[in-house]
């Protein structure tokens, strides 16, 4: 836990809250056996959670526990006395720090006039989308309970996954890390389309059979739901749980939890193993608070697997220093080399698009996608540019069925699903679809490539030729000015291909 001082607040509260005094209410006419039974039930349902009181009620309601408020508070009070539950103020009044989202940004705590406690109060702007934390509210930290599971249901899965030779080598190394090494964190660096998911799955199946609780986080909702759909086809039902905004079973429990990073906020020292997928992507990339949520969600000294195709320079530095062990998979699962992008210098792209002038490369790209019956993925740096490209696309050919997708789009999942089904053949998008998606017959065009970082460009180029059966995909960068990042992409990809050839992995 990141320097989180757990203050123990006893039941005779000197605590500045009306809600907290709820716990000190008289249990009255509830019989003792009934009360202890119910409190055990609450403990089972809520173990390992870090919740506000309103969230506790929501969780119990989701499990169809319809007890009276008096009974619930009495049950929770019993848990506090048995030291199975701690109360912490959601926001520390003195240090002005949010104990829930652990944010380092001092601006995110703001003073309000609270109508609930009739006093000056603080609220946190860092996590208010997940329910409002105020300094007059307690945060309930439940201790983790061991949950027994049946073992033999997992055996048939491991045989289904076929691994290639390089992948099998990686699995051995990862198993070695989990079983023997003392280091806590391991960097798993594999190129795009290397079959990371399959490798990790074979590693975690024996862990799941042991009954360990595993958290698999990824920063984006699209990536997480894609991962969940894959895992449900391989693993038995009820073993995997999807946690993301709008998910139906937010309050259920399962051994393998697939979640967006934001949802991890509601766990404290619960998981036995962490997998952080696409760890360099947006909300995680320079948000220290989120990393400390991940640390808090796991039991202290558990092992973490940091998975990425484009590691941050600071991690690589740690690896070269020998502080962080690393595993490196330079080849795709089908043994073909990574596609190299072609860079085209096109001045004044926007003016040309507005005037309706032809851009030769753009036209070639469209013709190529249509001729090879593929799917064209066009990346733009800002969502305002999407309609402009859509307009230009419509002018080129009549058989183009295109839409645009961005993060603020409400119907984004249905649009992506349409592209999967083949009802669309062009998609204009922002960095939303840069990672974690696999379209079988994909071509990529990056407009205004000078605005993207080299990590984003590598991910975009990595969407192409992911299926062995379709190797016609091409990557084009259109740019108004050739930057270091674009050159770096080509250098890095050729280096990776060289490494793979050296190791004898390429077919």
């Amino acid at each position, binding site marked *: 836990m990141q320097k989180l001082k757990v203050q123990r607040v006893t039941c005779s509260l000197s605590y500045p809250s009306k809600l907290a005094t709820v716990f000190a209410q008289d249990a009255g006419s509830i019989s003792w056996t009934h009360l202890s039974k119910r409190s055990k039930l609450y403990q089972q349902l809520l173990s390992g959670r870090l919740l506000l009181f*309103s969230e506790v009620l929501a969780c119990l309601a989701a499990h169809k526990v319809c007890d009276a408020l008096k009974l619930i508070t009495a049950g929770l009070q019993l848990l506090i006395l048995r030291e199975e539950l701690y109360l912490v103020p959601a926001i520390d009044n003195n240090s002005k720090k949010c104990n829930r989202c652990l944010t380092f940004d001092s601006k995110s705590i703001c003073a309000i006039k*609270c*109508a609930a406690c009739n006093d000056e109060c603080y609220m946190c702007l860092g996590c208010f*989308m997940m329910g*409002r934390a*105020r300094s007059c509210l307690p945060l309930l930290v439940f201790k983790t309970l061991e949950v027994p599971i049946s073992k033999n249901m997992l055996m048939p899965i491991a045989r289904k996954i076929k691994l290639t030779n390089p992948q099998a080598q990686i699995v051995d190394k990862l198993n070695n890390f989990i079983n023997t090494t003392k280091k806590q964190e391991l960097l798993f660096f594999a190129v795009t389309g290397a079959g990371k998911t399959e490798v990790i799955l074979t590693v975690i199946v024996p862990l799941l059979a042991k009954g360990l609780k595993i958290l698999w986080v990824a920063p984006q909702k699209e990536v997480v739901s894609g991962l969940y759909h894959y895992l449900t086809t391989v693993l038995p039902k009820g073993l995997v749980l999807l946690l993301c905004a709008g998910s139906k079973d937010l309050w259920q429990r399962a051994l393998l939890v697939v979640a967006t990073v934001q949802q991890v906020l509601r766990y404290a020292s619960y998981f036995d193993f962490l997998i952080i997928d696409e760890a360099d992507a947006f909300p995680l990339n320079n948000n220290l608070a989120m990393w400390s949520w991940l640390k808090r969600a796991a039991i202290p000294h558990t092992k973490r697997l940091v998975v990425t195709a484009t590691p941050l320079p600071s991690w690589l530095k740690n690896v070269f220093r020998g502080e962080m062990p690393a595993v490196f998979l330079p080849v795709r699962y089908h043994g073909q080399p990574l596609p190299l992008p072609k860079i085209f210098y096109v001045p004044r792209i926007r003016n040309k698009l507005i005037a309706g002038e032809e851009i030769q490369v753009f036209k070639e790209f469209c013709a190529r996608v249509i001729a090879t019956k593929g799917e064209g993925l066009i990346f733009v740096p800002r969502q305002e540019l999407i309609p402009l490209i859509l307009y230009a696309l419509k002018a080129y050919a009549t058989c183009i069925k295109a839409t645009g997708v961005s993060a603020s789009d409400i119907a984004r999942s249905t649009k992506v699903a349409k592209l999967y089904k083949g009802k669309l053949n062009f998609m204009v998008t922002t960095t939303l679809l840069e990672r974690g998606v696999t379209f079988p017959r994909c071509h990529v065009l990056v407009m205004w490539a000078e605005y993207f970082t080299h990590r984003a460009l590598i991910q975009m180029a990595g969407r192409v030729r992911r299926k062995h059966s379709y190797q016609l995909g091409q990557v084009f960068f259109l740019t108004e000015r050739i930057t270091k990042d674009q050159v770096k992409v080509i250098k890095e990809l050729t280096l990776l291909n060289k490494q793979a050839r050296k190791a004898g992995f390429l077919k």
Partner: protein
Amino acid sequence: MREAISFFFPKRAVCWVCTRVLAGYLVNAAPWMRICSYCANHFRAIKAPLCFSCGSMLRGNKQCGGCLAREQSFYFQNRSCVCYSNLVKRVVQLYKYKGKEDLFIPLASWMLSVLLSEFGQFSWDFLTWVPMDSYRLQERGFNQARMLALYLGQAIKKPAKGFLVRKKPSLPQSLLKRKKRLLISKGVFALSEYANPDVLQGKKIIIVDDVYTTGATLISCASLLLESGSKQVCSITFAR
């Protein structure tokens, strides 16, 4: 030091809806100016011709169909700032349910301009707000209408007082259909201890709320105030 820095790097205005940085230094501009072009496309400010009583946008009639159908025996006017589009809905949800309290400043200052242009010619005595039941107040921590009313009251230098209380907790109106809303909001409100007949006698009052949908809440509030002797009651909301 901080002043020196802010002299060379003046504070940039951000869109108060999506927090995107805006071109130009519009820090103290009106809320409808401080929106980015993308959000502005989804905000539709209400312009004349309006329905005389509920304040919705019309083509030519004097009253909209909903107001003509309603059996309303008294004089009541509502005015609002923007149409209740999807983005506005999201903004109101962010303010009300998610609890981003500082949104009340742009919302209220927008309402202030409408208040002055539409109701400026009358001389008002009081402002009041739509009350909330105590359990939900505990849960939410603030009354969104009260904050708007206090801001408006300060701006036009008239006292804002809570004349009304909610007698029984009701489901949030946003979960109910039109007919049920109209039925349910009868007998929900009552006068509070501030609302003596001597205080209210012959006074003109504005009720403040965040959203006007069917008007059930606001009209039942208004009828209560009129019954207790006030001369004229109108209402102002952010979205319509």
